[in-house]
């Protein structure tokens, strides 16, 4: 499985969700898998994407919200797992794409334990680990929310589309998609 296939599984599981993607691989993979749809792609603010998704989930409790996060992103913003466990938005799924590397900065090792599902369970969040596209799709669809899905992939191929998005365009398209 490569990151684009992982995100494609999420899109199949939640075709009507509002997606937020963190800087780097997550944004490139969501652009590749979702035909560059009107999602909220982070061009920067590493470590903030889960908090951003929590804000979206708070404003749109009627919509499922999926946060697609890198593993480096998730350790940088690890406190947001505690915030997720405290606020407990019933419509938010956090997905961590785990390859053990900081891809956007050149592929350096993560250097710390990649134990996102274990931490989430300790925080009393529903959590699971997927190692295949089929598992990723099924667990993304069935996991109780708020929940965290760790997707482990082995093919570290760069998805393709640039992660350096045109911010005002992204914001305007997302606002239109998120507003009834």
């Amino acid at each position: 499985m490569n990151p684009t296939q992982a995100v494609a599984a999420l899109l199949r599981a939640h075709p009507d969700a509002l997606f937020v993607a963190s800087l780097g691989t997550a944004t490139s993979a969501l652009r590749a898998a979702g035909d560059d749809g009107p999602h909220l792609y982070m061009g920067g603010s590493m470590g903030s994407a889960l908090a951003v998704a929590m804000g979206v989930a708070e404003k749109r409790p009627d919509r499922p919200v999926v946060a697609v996060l890198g593993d480096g992103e998730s350790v940088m913003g690890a406190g947001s797992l505690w915030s997720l466990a405290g606020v407990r938005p019933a419509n938010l799924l956090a997905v961590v794409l785990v390859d053990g590397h900081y891809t956007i900065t050149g592929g350096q090792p993560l250097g710390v334990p990649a134990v996102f599902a274990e931490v989430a369970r300790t925080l009393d969040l529903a959590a699971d680990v997927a190692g295949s596209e089929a598992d990723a799709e099924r667990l993304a669809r069935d996991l109780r929310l708020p929940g965290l899905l760790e997707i482990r992939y082995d093919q570290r191929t760069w998805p393709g589309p640039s992660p350096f998005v045109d911010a005002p365009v992204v914001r305007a398209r997302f606002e239109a998609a998120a507003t009834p």
Partner: protein
Amino acid sequence: MTEATGSTWQVELARALAEGGVEAAAWVPDKRLAPVAEALSALSVPVRTLTREEECVGWAAGYRAAGGTPLVLMQCSGLGNSLNAIGSLVLPYGLGFPLILSMRGALGERNPAQMALGRTAVPMLELLGIQAFRLRRPQDAAMLARGALGVADGARELAPIVLEPELDMAG
């Protein structure tokens, strides 16, 4: 301690923000901001406690991007924790919202550790091109709240309301 029916500047500020359309707020707890948060809750504005100020900025950016009107409350030292989220998310994406900044490290401060961020909070905002609106007199609270909401909603810019120490020194 404070009731929504009272007339402290904290309550006036919260009421003007709620009446002006603020739907939800995020904060990292702070003693001076607590009466504002309590007043917001009393006015049925949910106040979310997050672990770090940078998260509050991200949360508000998402809330705003989804079409809402959020509010963030933080101590000025938390501005230091938030700079990257402001610089690489709020500013480029044009996601304006009011930000209540409670000043430490200013007139009357007794903790040496607070001074540097107190001295530099507003200059840092200015370097980022963000205009800060300073609240010094209790009677100006509602006016500043309405004005900041106009800047956030209309001009789509981050609108800091800076709570100066003089607010609590007057009469």
